[in-house]
């Protein structure tokens, strides 16, 4: 017992110090989420939100959907690559962009369920962003577990995949504990002490801040979207070297099943589906194309093309940017299109006109 207490006494000081500093300062809002209801309410009422808007995106959008005053006719399910899709592309229709950063198929299930519960049915049209890495087995993202219940509700209704294939919510709670005692976060907290980036509810757009708009889309500061072309090219190359998400040679069967399950479920609910394959920056694409270890992302194009014939949904975009006549200037980093380059693919009138030249695909 004496030893046990001595061990505790040695451990308690660093744990108490890191835990309390991290919890009280919490510069990235990873430990305290009490701001969410107020922010969600403001957004649902037509206000704008600036600040670290990627933090807790899933929880915020869950609350936001619950408080939405309209029933969206068009819904976007996707990642940061479709966060720039805005209401004005669908004039005359009610719209909501439920994209979240690092979106997984599980997130898509969850948001579809939340919208269905909210309006007792599905939107007329759903745009699904098919990030290539979602079909591999290297992509690790646990934050969808925040909305695990919603994910399971649709999964169980469709009934083809056992919930036992997916982690429990405890996995997310472990991440919270880890972050509470993280020394990296502790150092960041001390660095940010007194000057954390705060959430601000606004009426107008601020060009130098990341903002969430009332339609669910995200507006990035001009310094990111209009960065120097050389800087963008460097980012595009760096993305290839730093990201392991695309490292797979064949689509993963479970991921494909999860995706097809969602597609067939939404089609049974009479939703008009548009699947968007987001392109890569030409430099990133070139590096990916040269690497045998990344062959899987090119198989995703073929897989989706076959699927489009089977399920008869609309397929737009392509992994290869030159197939879409896109150049470096259309991107602001390795994977993200600028809004003006993204819009023609998503805009409902243009969907059929901008189909990629499939022959160019590898």
């Amino acid at each position, binding site marked *: *017992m*004496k*030893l046990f207490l*001595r061990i505790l006494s040695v451990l308690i000081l660093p744990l108490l110090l890191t835990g309390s500093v991290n919890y009280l300062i919490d510069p990235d809002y990873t430990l305290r989420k009490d701001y969410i209801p107020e922010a969600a309410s403001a957004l649902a009422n037509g206000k704008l939100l600036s600040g670290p808007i990627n933090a807790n995106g899933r929880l915020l959008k869950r609350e936001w959907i619950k408080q939405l005053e309209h029933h969206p006719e068009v819904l976007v399910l996707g990642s940061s690559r479709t966060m720039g899709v805005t209401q004005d592309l669908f004039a005359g229709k009610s719209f909501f962009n439920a994209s979240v950063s690092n979106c997984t198929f599980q997130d898509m299930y969850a948001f579809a369920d939340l919208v269905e519960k909210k309006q007792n049915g599905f939107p007329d049209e759903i745009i699904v962003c098919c990030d290539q890495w979602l079909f591999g087995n290297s992509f690790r993202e646990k934050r969808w577990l925040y909305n695990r219940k919603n994910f399971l509700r649709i999964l169980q209704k469709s009934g083809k995949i056992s919930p036992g294939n997916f982690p429990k919510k405890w996995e997310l709670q*472990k991440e919270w504990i880890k972050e509470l*005692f*993280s020394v990296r976060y502790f150092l960041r907290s001390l660095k940010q002490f007194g000057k954390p980036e705060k959430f601000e509810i606004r009426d107008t757009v601020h060009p130098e801040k990341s903002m969430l708009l009332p339609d669910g889309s995200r507006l990035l500061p001009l310094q990111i979207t209009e960065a120097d072309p050389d800087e963008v090219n460097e980012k595009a190359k760096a993305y290839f070297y730093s990201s392991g998400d695309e490292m797979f040679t064949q689509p993963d069967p479970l991921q494909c099943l999860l995706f097809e399950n969602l597609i067939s479920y939404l089609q049974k609910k009479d939703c008009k589906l548009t699947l968007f394959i987001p392109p890569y920056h030409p430099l990133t694409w070139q590096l990916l194309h040269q690497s045998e270890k990344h062959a899987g992302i090119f198989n995703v194009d073929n897989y989706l093309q076959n699927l489009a014939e089977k399920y008869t949904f609309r397929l737009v975009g392509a992994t290869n940017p030159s197939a879409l006549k896109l150049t470096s200037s259309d991107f602001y980093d390795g994977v993200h299109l600028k809004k003006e380059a993204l819009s023609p693919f998503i805009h409902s009138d243009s969907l059929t006109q901008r189909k990629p030249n499939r022959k160019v695909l590898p």
Partner: protein
Amino acid sequence: MLFNSIEFVLFFPAVLLLYWQFFNRKSVNLRNAFLLTTSYIFYGWWDYRFLGLILLSSVVDFWCGKKIFQAQTKNRKRHFLILSLTVNLGVLFFFKYFGFFADELIVLFNSWGYSLHPVSLNVILPVGISFYTFQTLSYTIDIYRDRLKPTDDRLAFFTFVGFFPQLVAGPIERAKNLLPQFNTLKTFDYNRAANGFRQVLWGFFAKIAVADSVAPIVDTIFLHDETASAATLALGAVLFSIQIFGDFAGYSNIAIGLAALLGFDLMQNFNNPYFSRNIREFWSRWHISLSTWFRDYVYIPLGGNRCSSFRRSLNVMVTFIISGLWHGANWTFIVWGAIHGLFYLLTRPFSGKTQSDKIRARQWFSIAGTFMLVTIAFVFFRAENIFQAGNILMRMCGLAKGQTLLQLTSITKILPAIFFSVMLIVTEWVQKDKKHGLDILFLKPAVRHAVYYFIIFAILFSFQTDRVFIYFQF
């Protein structure tokens, strides 16, 4: 359950309290039943279905051990030994090697013009199967060789096989050392337990602060082996040597420390292997429990040193190749084993009897040379296939130009990894005569506590939940 998981952080203190407060008080059987239950919970947390394999191994070897001992003739003893070997190695072969050999057989037959259909069973490799299989095998083999008497205590034997601190990644204990420790109640020894805790802390530092910080850099370099420069690849190989040492020696230190907290003594598994002055010495310091296992149960039965020079060399090669195959069903491991066999044979004339000598700084040339050989061999261990390993070594030798480390990864990842790696190596050097890096009772209490706090902060700095240990796959 992983040692570096939050589940284990909650699990072990509860086990420790219950163990010393209730279960280790009156009855050995009650204590062993408690340890067995907690060990099975520990293992079953990963996949309870594979508990059946541990049970099978325990039942078969307990029974075979008795039968070997009772058998009147050598022939009959041999029958029961063969039964034990067949069951244990059969299970190991099925789960670990079946897919590999089936694939290779198909390739071979196809090259002869016969078409064979691939057999795909999608077998999951049970965690730690190679470790507990070898541990139980040593029990029946030692009884067959009249070096050990079988135990009548079924519960003690089952606990010996499933003892959770060393169940999934060793040290591979001999029954002679560990099994008798389950026959008596433990007396709490404050100094031993405190030292055990320090060893656990040192193990976590090696695993979390060093190996887990280095791992993403190594992964990136090996991922971009086709475009990385020679210097980057060489650094990747060196960092992998550090990673695998931190990972595995870290695991062993945690296992030995946890066992000490429960009052058990486990054998030392690493003894400053990177300060070895030749390959022979390296193998007396690296994964000691496995290398001595192969020496006693493979090399010596093959004839060991008591045969012609050619036969002795052949025995060395066979032992190293089997040792490579033990690590995994892949040609990379076989080549890794074969390279070590070759290095062992080629450097034997210059090796002398250095094991008993103290390591000195002036021997840096032999230490650096041995480390370089070990690092070259580790390229095969880490590579996905022998072609990748060959490509990396070719690019390194050809001084290829390409991406630098800073282009592949960020300085914020590199700096902590290098800093903690240097800390580990320097401490291992300074503490080379001690059992582990935190054996620092000679320091003043204030300094000692400062070291503890530094280690705890380093662990919390790098902590990532559930980053698995490399040796779990073996």
